[in-house]
């Protein structure tokens, strides 16, 4: 019996059955979603606590250290202290400067204040200068703060954020409290965002102070 060869027929079939199609779309959506969690923020948010709705951080949030050759230059900081005197970091050239951004209303700043005051006393005779920058505070509260914690070093009053703005292209204070350690040549050796610990900051200051200019 002669059988005609059947021509190969191409049956029009949907590429995927309906449940498979839905499953594929759902799978793709899941993958895309997993890849964009944390889309908002990224690197800057991790070191800018304000993005979480707070203006301050608790605990040592991040520490950034720079090796001697690759340190950004810090701008000269000047202003009026809480006691009404003019002060500039230019007069500290050749010495280590510890710049601490604080506010009396900021709880982590209050927590680290005793350690800073003690370190300032410890390094008083060692060519290390501590300078505070007071953010969004009034005169009476700031003075009461320095009385409460026995802060022996001067603080500049910065109600208009001018000092913080000067650091924007180098290594800005990302939140309060922030502490910058400047070496003898006026470059930023390290930045700590969050409260400092006595031992940690002491080690850093000692290391920077031991360097030759």
């Amino acid at each position: 019996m002669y059988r005609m060869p059947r021509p190969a027929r191409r049956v029009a079939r949907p590429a995927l059955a309906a449940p498979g199609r839905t499953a594929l779309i759902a799978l793709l959506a899941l993958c895309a979603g997993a890849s964009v969690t944390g889309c908002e923020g990224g690197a800057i948010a991790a070191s800018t606590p304000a993005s979480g709705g707070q203006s301050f951080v608790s605990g040592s949030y991040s520490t950034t250290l720079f090796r001697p050759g690759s340190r950004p230059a810090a701008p000269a900081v000047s202003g009026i202290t809480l006691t009404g005197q003019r002060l500039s970091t230019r007069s500290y050239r050749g010495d280590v400067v510890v710049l601490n951004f604080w506010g009396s209303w900021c709880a982590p700043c209050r927590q680290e204040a005793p350690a800073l005051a003690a370190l300032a006393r410890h390094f008083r005779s060692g060519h290390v200068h501590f300078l505070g920058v007071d953010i969004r505070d009034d005169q009476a509260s700031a003075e009461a703060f320095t009385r409460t914690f026995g802060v022996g070093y001067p603080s500049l009053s910065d109600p208009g954020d001018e000092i913080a703005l000067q650091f924007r292209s180098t290594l800005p204070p990302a939140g309060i409290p922030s502490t910058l350690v400047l070496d003898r040549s006026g470059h930023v050796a390290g930045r700590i965002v969050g409260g400092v610990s006595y031992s940690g900051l002491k080690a850093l200051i000692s290391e920077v102070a031991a360097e030759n200019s």
Partner: protein
Amino acid sequence: MTGLRAPRAPGRGAPAAGDGGAGPDAALPQPRGQSARLRLAGWLRRGWRQLTSMRTALILLFLLAVASVPGSVLPQEGIDPAAVAQYYAAHPALAPVLARFSLFNVFAAPWFAATYLLLFVSLAGCVLPRTFRLAGSARQQPPQAPRNLSRLPLAASYTTALEPAAAAAAAGQLLSGRRFRLRTGAGWVAAEKGYLREVGNLLFHIALLALLASVGLGAIFGYKANRLLVTGDSFANTPTALDVFRPGRLVTPSDLAPFSVTLDRFTASYVTSGAETGQPLQFNAALRYSASPGGPVRSYDLRVNHPLVVDGVSVYIIGHGYAPEFRVTDGAGQVVFDDAVPFIPVNQNGLTSEGVIKVPDASPDQLGFAGVFLPTAVDSGGRLESVFPAPLDPRVSLVAYAGSLGMNAGQPQSVYQLDTGHMRQLPISPRPLSPGESMKLPDHAGTLTFTGYKPWVSLAITYDPGQLPALLSGIVALAGLILSFMVRRRRVFARASAGPDGTTIVDLGGLARSDAAGGFDEEFAELAQEIMVAQDGRCLTATWHGTGPPADAPGADETIGTAPGSTDPVTGTSESAVSSTDDESLGHPEGE
């Protein structure tokens, strides 16, 4: 039965007849790994085709619209955190469930971003290949003129005394004068017009992609921030100075435009009579700003919907309130607090505001105060309430606490909330204070003086580099869409062949590929008449799609040879339309 085998095709080893519809790859067994890889490749290819299909894109677009609904219905964290907190208070069981699905932050939720990204990928994967095809088809030549032009929906023919080649050339010349794209051959001319439609289509798709890219650009390089500014204070655009800072993924502090703003004066006007008493009419914040530290200082009157724009950053005023000023003297006689404390409005009618004063450096005990500020205090049934938002008779009423505020332990606290867990309430009879009055705390704990009040404004600082590109893309998309709807692709063919008596018979045919709006019939009639006149010809037949010929069509004679000038009535044969999608015969398959 005698079997008559089908002869084996020479050179083919595999049996042809018995296999039926089996494909060639069934004949050779394949190694398992290779078939698995082929299956995976097949799945990926199928998945990609599914993703870039128009149906998927439409589904995703619909999902995006549906996903935006909770963003409009529920309070959003980025816009009104106070309303979110109120929602939590009002629906304590439901709110955490909603928060788990990011319904209070819809536009930053992962699932919203996933839908948006998938739509983008689908659109890009569909549009880019189409773009190349459309660009190619926009440059394409018209197809060859079909042999039998009378089968087209619009056709006409007539005789002329010119040579066939000259007749075709004359027709071609007229058509190209009408801006048709020509393709000529031996005795025939094919003309097509309306390529702008493809261009419009192209523009629409590309603009849609550009729109999505612009929005993405804004989200990655843009940021949003909030700042509450009391009159007389100033701030700079730096992270430490912002109350809320939501940066895009690639935003660094040096990207923030370094402007500074000082609030000199804030005035608000309200409706003073009628049913809408107390509704705000206008807010006006007199600002001074400088675009960079040390730069020139300029003034600006900030009003609602009239933002200050500095270096591409927009500063909007989104709210206002009052910050009563207090001076606190502690038990040791020292002034330990002297500042304006922003109070947050809880009631829009009279702007009744609540706030908290924390005095952590008072001795011997830390002090805390919580209370309300009433701009226009009126006694109603023994209770004080504010009836008008302007400070016509301001009062402040506070409760005093002493103890430990919990701030020295380092745990961050909101400046608007007082944790009285480790504090005791001081026994003072509550008495609303007028500006200038003092409250003496018992047991020599100190004194609080209500010294005055200042208004504050809430500023929203936004930077969205994708806003202008998005607007332009939207406009271009609309223009492309309109273009693709209004312009029609249409073709006109002319064939000239030698006829009896040495005359030339010229056949004309017309085809409109997408003529939803109509109008091609008239155009074809016009063209046919002009060509005929240009060739000095006489009309033979005319067929029109559907109904009879339009009134201004050249007169259609039934037979060849009728004396010129006779006016037989038109008997247009209403031709049953050859399907206008008979594109195989026209030589160009639809790309759709």
